[in-house]
């Protein structure tokens, strides 16, 4: 049977790994390639790297850092951050990444997801959707690392991404990110109910129980972990790790 994927999600800021809270304050986590070696040893299923300032800085992916990372990795790798053309996507795929996540440029270049999916297959394209809750409770899609509000509804945008050819959705709750408070189950379920492609829930995981909830109750196909894989525990120091295999299997059985 297919295991539910639990994906450590590492944030790249220039050439360092960092961790943010609500897309704001950041802490240094380490050297990207060196940290990947540790995840290799831990035999995680898959890794996702997000360059969190690329789009905002109108910068293309840092291929040198990505090549260093790919050299160390013997499991599937996904990358997101600043990809705005088929050519750039090719550059990243050629280095050895399996999938590319498109966020800002899915909005700014409507044909991009379709173009990459046509050439590399839908399973190689992840539509990355960042969601923030406004003052009056409405949830909207943000781009440029949470800096610009598109006004779009996440469910509608998710459906559109699916129709454009995305193979998966990475759904990130900006409000929950780095808080250890649990996923936004309602948001995740609204999207999983509306699309037929897998949804990766991201933002807020603080325990195995949260993981179980978002998979069993909100029907996420996979889970992306941030704080849980880079800190010893909530409020404590940086220590790279991965939830124990037995605990994972027990929770997701």
């Amino acid at each position, binding site marked *: 049977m297919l295991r539910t994927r639990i994906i450590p999600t590492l944030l790249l800021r220039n050439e360092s790994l960092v961790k943010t809270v609500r897309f704001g304050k950041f802490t240094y986590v380490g050297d990207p390639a060196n940290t990947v070696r540790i995840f290799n040893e831990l*035999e995680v299923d898959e890794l996702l790297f997000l360059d969190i300032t690329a789009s905002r800085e109108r910068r293309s992916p840092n291929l040198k850092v990505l090549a260093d990372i790919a050299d160390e990795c013997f499991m599937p790798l996904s990358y997101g951050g600043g990809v705005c053309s088929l050519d750039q996507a090719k550059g990243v795929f050629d280095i*050895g990444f399996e999938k590319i996540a498109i966020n800002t440029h899915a909005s700014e270049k409507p044909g991009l997801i379709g173009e990459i999916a046509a050439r590399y297959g839908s399973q190689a394209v992840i539509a990355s959707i960042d969601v923030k809750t406004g003052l009056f409770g409405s949830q909207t899609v943000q781009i440029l690392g949470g800096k610009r509000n598109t006004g779009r509804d996440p469910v509608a945008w998710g459906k559109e991404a699916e129709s454009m050819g995305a193979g998966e959705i990475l759904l990130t709750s900006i409000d929950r990110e780095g808080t250890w408070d649990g996923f936004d189950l309602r948001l995740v379920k609204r999207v999983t109910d509306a699309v037929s492609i897998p949804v990766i829930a991201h933002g807020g995981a603080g325990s195995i129980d949260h993981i179980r909830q978002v998979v069993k109750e909100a029907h996420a196909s996979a889970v992306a972990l941030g704080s849980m894989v880079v800190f010893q525990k909530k409020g404590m120091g940086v220590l790279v790790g991965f939830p124990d295999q037995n605990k994972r299997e027990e929770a997701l059985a």
Partner: protein
Amino acid sequence: MITIVNYGMGNLGSILNMFKRIGVPARIESEPQAIEQAEKLVLPGVGAFDAAMTRINNAAGLSELLDRKALVDQVPILGVCLGMQMLTRSSEEGTLPGLGWIPAVTTRFPKLDGLKVPHMGWNVAKLNTPSALTVETGPEPRYYFVHSYCVHVDDPAHSLMRTHYGVDFDSGIGRENIYGVQFHPEKSHRFGMQILKNFAAL
């Protein structure tokens, strides 16, 4: 020396990287003269069936050369992912014939309720017919899969590994010197390393 065939599609660098990590000399080649010298071949592949077969057929002399290496010289050959599907005689994904080196056919995953296609993620392969390719993999090896089409062999003896996803399909196949794995060994940690080690030791 293991030669990884570069016909324009596939995870070449990653496969090379894993060989390097396990200390096995390998290289990537696209020129027929170089492929001619190969003692063992790896046929990678990511993407669509017809696109891959077209490239092979269009590359001058490549198709004949591969047939000769496989069926006459009988060097060990390993097809990976789409590369394994190409070993079969045809695929429902396309209209062109495959290499047909192993009597088998590639079909789409059935439309079953709740079965998300492509089959993407880590799944278990159960060993079937014993083979030099699958020694020391342990009882329940798991590998990374990403594919929308799966292979069924005509003769069960050619099925080396079977995996379940909606249906049972052959995740590892082999006949004489020709082998194929549906999963990506280069993305499957130590499980993948074992497969590549075994292939190198043939």
